């Protein structure tokens, strides 16, 4: 059942993802990509768990590496996106 619930969630999230993005003005393509790249850094949550609960040094190292990388992705991703978006002076739409 747990698994099914996850699948359900997965399917609904997929549809929601499709519906959310409709017409994106071209100047937003890159920031949007960058911003959602930061979200994909959610794997950081997995990395924390992996780093925190791994048994054995090897697993811990893997987890540690995963965490470092995921953190870079998240922190860097959000900051870069914000910088990009900061550049757009509102064109007075």
């Amino acid at each position, binding site marked *: 059942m747990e698994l099914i619930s*996850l699948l359900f*969630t997965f399917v609904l*999230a997929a*549809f*929601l*993802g*499709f519906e*959310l*993005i*409709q*017409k994106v*003005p*071209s100047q*937003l*393509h890159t*920031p*949007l*990509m960058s*911003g959602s*790249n*930061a*979200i*994909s*850094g*959610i*794997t*950081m*949550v*997995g*990395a*924390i768990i*992996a780093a*925190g*609960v791994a048994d054995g040094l090897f*697993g811990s190292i*893997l*987890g*540690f*590496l*995963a*965490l*470092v*990388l*995921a*953190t*870079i*992705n*998240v*922190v*860097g*991703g*959000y*900051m*870069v*996106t914000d910088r*990009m*978006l900061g550049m*757009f002076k*509102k*064109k007075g739409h």
Partner: protein
Amino acid sequence: MQEMLINLAYIVASILFIFGIKMLGSADTARKGNLVSAIGMLIAVVVTLFEKGLSYEWIVAGLIVGTAIGAIAAKRVQMTGMPELVALFNGFGGLASLLVGWAEYTKDEGHLTPFTATVVVLAILIGGITFTGSMIAYLKLSGKMGGTPTLFPGQKVFNALVVLAMLGLGGYFIATGTEWALYAVIGLSLALGILGVIPIGGGDMPVVISLLNSFSGLAASAAGFVIFNTVLVVAGCLVGASGLILTVIMCKAMNRTLANVLFGGFGAASGKGGAEVEGEMKAMSVTDAYYVLEAANRVIFVPGYGMAVAQAQHAVKELGEVLEKNGAEVSYAIHPVAGRMPGHMNVLLAEADVPYEQLTEMDDANAIMPAVDVAIVIGANDVVNPAAAEDPSSPIYGMPIINVHEARTVFALKRGQGAGFSGLVNTLFFRENTRMIYGDAKATVNALVGQFKD
């Protein structure tokens, strides 16, 4: 109870991600959207730290190192270097998913359920491709590697074999749990990321990154299945789906298909063999045309008799205005014999109040044509027939025409296969860079305007 709270927090985080993505899609709210999603991320991360049974030394170290590197890189990067930085970050995310999958394997070694094994393989496989693919994209974008497609004979077959091997070994691992198979999958996925991206030109890298971004979301989602964590599944899948849509949108803005972007490079290796073919008329939908126009910087209208028949002048004027508001430079190229009386187009465009400054004479229009992103031919035919310049046997050979075929992309708006006044076949419509948008010109143009206003 604690678990309950953590999960509720995950739900909140997911909601924030949803809002964040939605807000990122519109200019007014994009920056706030990014902030909203960042808050979601913060909540998810902080709450995870409350999970039971975590040992914190690795975690704290990892967080500090990662935050420092990420922040410094983001601060230091030049504005022009941002796209490659995004590629780099994206690769890291993919690698992280791979590592999470791998770490989970080391923990449960041997007693994986088939399901867990499957998702571990998926996380590793997608994460691996994302990682190396992003790295290549990074190298190409930053100029550390040449932007031209890298091609070698038999490339297609070789890559297909790699894919097959990877899938086969993945299946073998799932079935048997054999360790080396997993490592082989890791290796092959890393290789595939490289192999898949090197044949793609530097100009297409943004699309590749967007696709790989979608992949890294899926990898995160797979990692979520590995550790049975809902927020990972949801957030990863949101990114996977929205990233895919975004990729498609970006392709359309380049008037390409995704397949063309990904595998077009291969074609370049084989091409140029056959004789000059006639080509075929390629129709395009209004929505796809919208994506191209939305991204265009210079647009030229070429009206003809069909615009008069459709009485589309007001609609055309409006499309022009909308394009200008969107940042494009717009002009109207008037061929002296367009229409059915001298000055036919002038009468109509004046009626629609097109400013005189935007009316361009043939010669001036032809001078800028190669720099034009989209030439929109509105019910014109004879006056844009390249045969006049190229085919000495044509009855109109020698007549100067408006050289729309030299523009990057040509949209030809007409109702069907009807010929013009002189009854000639127009090879323009068969050219590689021409797209037919069929239908009454007024309806088509109005539909295009509609696409811009929503």
